[in-house]
């Protein structure tokens, strides 16, 4: 056998081993990393698995120089390395592809890549950058137009730019933070082909995910983290998903919620030819038409940014419609205020729970009555009846199993899952006709996700019409009765769940197929 070369095709020297040893990192009130050991070798894909808040991202940000560890050290090929900023780690050959892409939308692809060049002198040589960029994208089968602006690219294309950028900078070790979260199934397949090629050439890859089957499919070794600690590092040979899930959560997990048969009732929500603009005044909804019946879950699948958010906001009254009609329970609601829509039976679990759903500096009780704050049951003449509010809140806390020290705790001190449970509790206590649930389990731990999905299924059984918007295709498949796919502001198809398969949905999400 030939000894492996020490230089990668991208020009950087291989990093035979990179190791994080005894890393600890504290944030106010949280021990994010507790004496963590982790290593990755050249020619290996090492998956880092764990729930949100398990400490994966913190650990990787330390390796990338974004954070400094309180304890422990990083070694590259056995030598101690200190990274004070990403500039240091980039020089050492470490690249990172962030979950939120690190691209400047108003620059071209070439300019974005050129931004990372530090040895180029004061004048830009974009021609040379462009040439090498094209060569790299050809070598790795990453189709990219170097001259377009990043804001014109789809999410999948942006990720290809991120990968080429990392390769261009000579990344010998590349950290991928949840790279598949925003991709269609086909794009995930393409990504994995590229990643395997990079591994075989001798790159070291760290793959962060919470999707078990992806980790199983791609990685050579798997490290599971929970509560800031490493649970175990194992070789990926015949490991069962069930085992990985137990390591992640610390107990057995039910992936599929019970979904009893329901007889659907009459149409509760009818959306007809709805049009709306996005924040940049561009058309975001193009003649969207939908119907949801009582006891039915309509799932909206699609890569984020294809109009899902605008659709939810339009129905909830947070964004003006520029055309069309929304009929709730037989009445047109487009001309109604938010307050009036809530009173006519609409409940909304917004996508950004901290910005649109709650007020962090308010207590749990204050958040619980945020929408009903003038309801007679909470009032005593012109004053609040604090005893009634307390009883109401404590009741919600118990019914929905919300973990909080008390009803007067500030909301910002609750975990994401518990904030989401509180929002759900509040929205459901008004006994809605229609529930819009936008990304109900995003960033929520597995235990709470399980619970929230269960609650949605109970609501379905009791006859609530549910509009479920999710980027997580597995969630859509698990909960929906019918699935509508949105692409570039249009509903490109509606399929029954029983007729739906991931392949077809993926093609529709990419705009390649209609149904």
């Amino acid at each position, binding site marked *: 056998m030939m000894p492996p070369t020490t230089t990668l095709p991208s020009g950087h020297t291989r990093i035979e081993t990179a190791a994080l040893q005894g890393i600890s990192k504290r944030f106010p009130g949280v021990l994010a990393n507790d004496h963590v050991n982790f290593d990755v070798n050249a020619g290996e894909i090492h998956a880092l698995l764990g729930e949100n808040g398990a400490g994966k991202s913190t650990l990787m940000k330390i390796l990338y120089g974004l954070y400094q560890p309180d304890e422990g050290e990083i070694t590259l090929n056995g030598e101690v390395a200190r990274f004070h900023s990403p*500039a240091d780690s980039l020089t050492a050959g470490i690249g990172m592809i962030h979950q939120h892409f690190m691209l400047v939308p108003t620059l071209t692809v070439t300019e974005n890549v050129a931004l990372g060049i530090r040895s180029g002198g004061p004048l*830009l040589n974009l021609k040379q950058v462009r040439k090498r960029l094209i060569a790299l994208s050809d070598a790795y089968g990453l189709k990219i137009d170097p001259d377009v602006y990043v804001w014109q690219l789809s999410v999948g294309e942006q990720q290809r730019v991120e990968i080429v950028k990392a390769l261009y900078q000579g990344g010998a070790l590349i950290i991928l933070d949840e790279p598949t979260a925003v991709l269609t199934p086909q794009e995930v397949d393409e990504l994995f082909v590229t990643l395997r090629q990079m591994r075989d050439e001798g790159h070291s890859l760290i793959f962060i995910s919470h999707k078990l089957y992806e980790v199983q499919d791609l990685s050579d070794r798997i490290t599971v983290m929970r509560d800031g600690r490493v649970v175990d590092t194992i070789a990926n040979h015949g490991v069962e998903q069930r085992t990985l899930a137990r390591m992640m959560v610390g107990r057995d997990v039910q992936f599929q919620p019970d979904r009893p048969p329901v007889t659907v009732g009459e149409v509760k929500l009818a959306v007809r030819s709805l049009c709306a603009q996005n924040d940049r005044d561009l058309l975001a909804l193009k003649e969207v038409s939908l119907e949801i019946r009582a006891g039915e879950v309509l799932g909206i699948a699609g890569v984020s940014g294809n109009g899902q958010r605008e659709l939810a906001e339009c129905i909830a009254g947070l964004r003006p419609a520029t055309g069309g009609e929304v009929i709730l329970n037989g009445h047109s609601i487009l001309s109604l205020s938010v307050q009036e829509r809530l009173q006519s039976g609409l409940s909304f679990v917004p996508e950004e729970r901290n910005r649109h759903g709650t007020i962090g500096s308010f207590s749990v009780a204050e958040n619980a009555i945020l929408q009903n704050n003038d309801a007679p049951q909470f009032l005593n003449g012109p004053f609040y009846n604090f005893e009634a509010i307390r009883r109401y809140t404590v009741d919600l806390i118990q019914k929905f199993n919300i973990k909080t020290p008390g009803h007067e705790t500030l909301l910002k001190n609750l975990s994401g899952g518990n904030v989401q449970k509180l929002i759900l509790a509040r929205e459901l206590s008004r006994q809605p006709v229609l529930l819009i649930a936008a990304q109900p389990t995003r960033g929520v731990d597995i235990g709470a996700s399980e619970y929230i999905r269960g609650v949605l299924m109970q609501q379905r059984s009791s006859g609530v019409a549910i509009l479920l918007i999710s980027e997580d295709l597995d969630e859509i498949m698990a909960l929906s009765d019918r699935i509508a796919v949105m692409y570039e502001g249009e509903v490109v198809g509606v399929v029954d769940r029983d007729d739906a398969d991931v392949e077809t949905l993926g093609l529709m999400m990419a705009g390649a197929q209609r149904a």
Partner: protein
Amino acid sequence: MESSRTLLDILIAASGLTLAAATPFLFAALGELFAQRSGVLNLGVEGIMLMGAFTSVFVISDKGFNAHPAVGLLVAMLVGALMGLMMAFVSVTLQAEQGISGIGLTLFGQGMSTLLFRVLAAGVIVAGGVEKIDLPVLSNLPVLGSIFFHQDILTYAAFALVPISVWVLNRTTWGLQVRAVGQNPQAADSMGVNVARVRYSAVILGGVLAGVAGASLSMALTGVFQENMTAGRGFIAVALVYFGGWSPWKVMAGALLFSAANNLQIWVQVLDVRVAGAAIPPNLLIMLPYVLTIVVLIFARERQRREPAALTKPFERGEN
């Protein structure tokens, strides 16, 4: 024939003066453009201009050092750089609210220039000023020659700075970094760009150019210093950056428009233009550029789309 000849002369003089009077707007606005493209809104331009205006004219006058105008210009640039450094320190390092700290800098500049003027110059400064330079050949062109090529060196420099700014922004590494840092500092940081350093340099450059803007107003345009002589020009320069959609060429168009509006009111008074026999109240005319500022900003729709996304937002690593 005699009267039309006079009208042409007046138009030529007015046009030439419009270019000259656009000079301080241009310097200040181009400097502010760099700061804003990097993500820092510097509302201290007005104060920096005043300090540049006073210090330059003071050092070249007989109250000061009878220095060469070039020395006056250098002093104004140095003062501008120092005040830019103050702004950068407060807004980048201390991450203070940019609008408020800029207003603070303006108040500081107003107070300090007035104080120095009274203490050092007893309230009166007159200086020789800066000579007009006729560009060879070009200044002999009929009409155009006397409008465009009979100006002082600062005016030539201000207009030359427009294409230079475009070139710097689009063709240099620093320009690319400025654009990136103003749009997505997290991305720039993750690519190894030193966000703080880029913002410091852009804000300091903005200060230098605001200092030059002040000097051009006092040394070149008027040859005197008066308390608060900038009269809001610094704020108009900030508005011009918005008006011009962060593009140097459009900022230049804006500077010319405002300068023309400013000139119009002078000429209407000088020529005693009457509407239906009645004189136009001068106060109404003086308001013109300021009213124009407001009207233009209302209709500058482009603003929302092209505004640097990170404008006024301090950068802290690790926050998404």
